């Protein structure tokens, strides 16, 4: 087997984004007729790696060899020419066209559109897969599982030699996963090289021949799947050095501030945990585990199906974000600050006071003096660096300063329970440290901080306690003494089977 010629070979790939080394000296060979798993934590560099293969990113160093030809960088056209196809989590289909039309899209089948010929091509591929999809069904009427099969069929019809599947099982039901695996096995037998990315280690063992591990953009190792085990993989995936320092905190942990009992809604089921005054509760889990989703239910932005929320021991029936902020003192700093957190075209002051305008208005007319006081106070407290709070628009600020505006806007509501969703994503080290200090100050004031984060260092460094989300349910809880990267990752990647 070692004598086989790799279908795709990457050597010494390096990719640098401003301020971050996303990939450093990554070398992996992919062989035809093999399913090769690529695993790593959130942010390990898997997506960047794939994008170098498909030509979406040009690497800053290293070479890519495919079909005996060596390149410094791929382009989307080049990668397609060499039969590299990638199926992303978000489908790349035209949903108003039929399955067959999507499969044949971009292919020259003659001068005019020939429905019958396209349907025959699609039918043949579906028959080979052993799936029953009507080729003339519009894609938007298909289930996610079938959409994915159409994607794979599209790749197959283009005679792909290297197929990349990015988290393919995430949107699928158990039955659909089985069909997918059957198809993947078929393609392997036909000699296609398959790169399989998954958070679910069980699937790695079920499906793959080889597994490569990335950590913080660094290539760790490649193992034969049959020679390794779950514990070993987790050991390789974590082993992260804790280089960052966190500001010390001197806070008294008090009574329970927020308690969830079997809270269910927004596709997340039976979440129960407690968070205390003066405490930072870390919320961990892989991307898509339902952390953000349940926080939106707590905040009243999404409907609750069942379960209860208690604020300071009293049952709270939170129906809207307005009630959450002004009646129960809960604020949420959303994950996607540009889309949900702030008004980019408006000024800093405008943003900071936005949530409290109701409180500083008389008969709907804003008290401009109070407005200025509040904006100045939080602008200073957040240490926002800008020429002029009243004139500088948020869109011109750096990511870190934008985040401070969003935090200031949330804090202006004087809430006691503060939910941070990815508090430091995309901001520089200095601004991160300031956000941490800010969180500490909140704790010292007796506020309850809930921190949803994908950053392992931040999670371990800042939390007093950690709850881990599995797949759309709670996977476990760890006290400070029990903190370990292995345990968190083990809980988080235990698959949808629990409960």
């Amino acid at each position, binding site marked *: 087997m070692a004598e086989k010629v790799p279908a795709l070979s990457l050597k010494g790939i*390096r990719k*640098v984004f*401003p301020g971050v080394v996303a990939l450093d000296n990554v070398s992996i060979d992919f062989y035809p007729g093999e399913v090769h798993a690529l695993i790593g934590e959130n942010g390990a560099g898997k997506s960047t790696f794939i994008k170098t293969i498909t030509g979406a990113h040009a690497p*800053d*160093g290293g070479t890519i060899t495919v079909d005996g030809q060596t390149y410094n960088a791929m382009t989307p056209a080049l990668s397609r020419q060499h039969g590299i196809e990638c199926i992303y989590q978000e489908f790349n289909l035209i949903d108003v066209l039929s399955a067959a039309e999507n499969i044949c899209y971009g292919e020259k089948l003659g001068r005019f559109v020939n429905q019958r010929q396209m349907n025959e091509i699609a039918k043949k591929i579906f028959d080979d897969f052993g799936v029953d999809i009507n080729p003339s069904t519009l894609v938007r009427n298909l289930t996610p599982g079938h959409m994915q099969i159409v994607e794979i069929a599209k790749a197959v019809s283009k005679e792909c030699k290297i197929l990349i599947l990015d988290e393919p099982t995430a949107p699928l039901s158990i039955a659909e996963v089985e069909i997918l695996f059957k198809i993947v096995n078929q393609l392997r037998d036909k000699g296609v090289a398959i790169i399989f990315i998954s958070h679910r280690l069980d699937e790695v063992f079920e499906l793959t021949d080889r597994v490569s591990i990335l950590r913080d953009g660094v290539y760790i190792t490649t193992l034969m799947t049959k020679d390794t085990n779950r514990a070993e993989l987790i050991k390789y995936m974590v082993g992260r050095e804790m280089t960052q320092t966190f500001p010390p905190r001197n806070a008294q942990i008090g009574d329970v501030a927020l308690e969830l009992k079997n809270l269910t809604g927004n596709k997340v089921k039976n979440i129960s945990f407690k968070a205390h005054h003066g405490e930072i509760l870390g919320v961990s889990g892989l991307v898509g585990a339902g952390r953000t989703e349940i926080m939106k239910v707590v*905040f*009243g*932005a999404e409907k609750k199906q069942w379960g209860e929320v208690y604020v300071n021991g009293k049952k709270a029936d939170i129906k*809207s*974000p*307005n*009630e*959450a*902020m*002004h009646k129960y003192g809960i604020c*949420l700093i*959303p994950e996607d600050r540009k*889309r*949900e*957190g*702030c*008004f*980019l*075209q*408006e000024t800093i002051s*405008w943003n900071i006071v*936005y*949530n409290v*305008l*109701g409180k500083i*208005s008389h008969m*709907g*007319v*804003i008290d*401009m003096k109070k407005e200025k006081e509040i904006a100045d106070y939080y602008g200073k407290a957040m240490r926002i660096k800008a*020429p*002029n709070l009243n*004139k500088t628009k948020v*869109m*011109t600020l750096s990511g870190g300063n934008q985040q401070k505006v969003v935090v200031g806007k949330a804090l202006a509501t004087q809430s006691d329970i503060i939910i941070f969703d990815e508090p430091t994503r995309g901001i520089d080290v200095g601004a991160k440290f300031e956000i941490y200090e800010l969180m500490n100050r909140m704790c010292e004031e007796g506020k309850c901080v809930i921190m949803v984060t994908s950053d392992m260092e931040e999670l371990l460094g800042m939390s007093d306690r950690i709850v881990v989300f599995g797949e759309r349910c709670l996977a476990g809880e760890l006290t400070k003494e029990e903190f370990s990267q292995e345990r968190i990752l083990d809980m988080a990647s235990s698959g949808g089977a629990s409960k």
Partner: protein
Amino acid sequence: MQKKKLKDYFQEYIMVLVLILVLVVFEILGYTMANRNFFDISNLTTLISQKAYLVIVGVGITFIMLGGAMDLSTGYLLSTVGMVMALIDGNAKGGGTFFLITFAAGVILAILLSAFNGVMYSWLAVFPFIITLGSQYLFQGATYLLTGGQSKVFSKLDPAFKAFGGTPIVSSLRTSVIVMIIMVAIGSFILNKTHFGRNVYALGSNPDAVALSGVSVAKMRIAVFALAGLFFGIAQIVNIGMKNGSVQQSFGVGDEFTVMAGAMLGGVKMGGGGGKISNMVVGVYLIGVLQYGMNYLNFNQYWIYVVLGIVLLAAISLDTMQTRAAINAAKKVSGKPPKEAAA
């Protein structure tokens, strides 16, 4: 850093400069082509009074645009409101409903019809272009049905109409200008000083963030359209007044485009996210001056359309180029490239 640069001032007031420039051009052309003085007081006051009605419509349109929506149905809404007021009024037939009842009925109808647009928009959550395209036909048909079709003219309505919009104050300056000033002031006050006004900007800027702030996006949208309806109703009263208390179906039809074009020209962003009432006033008057001036100089009506089209496209191009330049500037990183290039 706190001081505004000359460039910023230039950007902010460029349309005012253009307006002045156009006035000067007409003055020069007036002398050379027709030996007439365009800057004649009665000439200018006529111009200001005539276009005041459009500015009042513009206040409503500005609210809708700042809230991230658009309205194609305004013209026929105005037409419907005008005809209903004429029918209620009954002065021509010697009946004579008290003018306040007529006015109130017109304004309330305008609010309801516009709010209807808002309700449909909130409920269906599709782009308002489609909603208001539909209601445009709806209002048009309703008007024809009400009046029995064809181009029916109602004249000699209650003199209160004329008092409200068409009575001269000084020279050719009419009461329409006073109503306009009041409406612009009210609109600006609401936008700049009230909680509601903030939410209008917020709605156009980022509806997702509005929803996460606990404000009902649906209710806000309905409220914005309803408020716009208030201005539409008042505008049509002024318009009838300007026409000496007569009204016909065509009153208002097509004006939504003039006003929207003016607002965009002045700097109100289509799809929300920026602009002020004052921008709209300048823009609407710029179009008004072009129309009036070219008529004054006896230009062919068809050429007027061509010029207006060119002006509008030029303004949009300028705005787009500015936005692109800002985006590109924001993408740039400060500093210099490192001396060692990566291998």
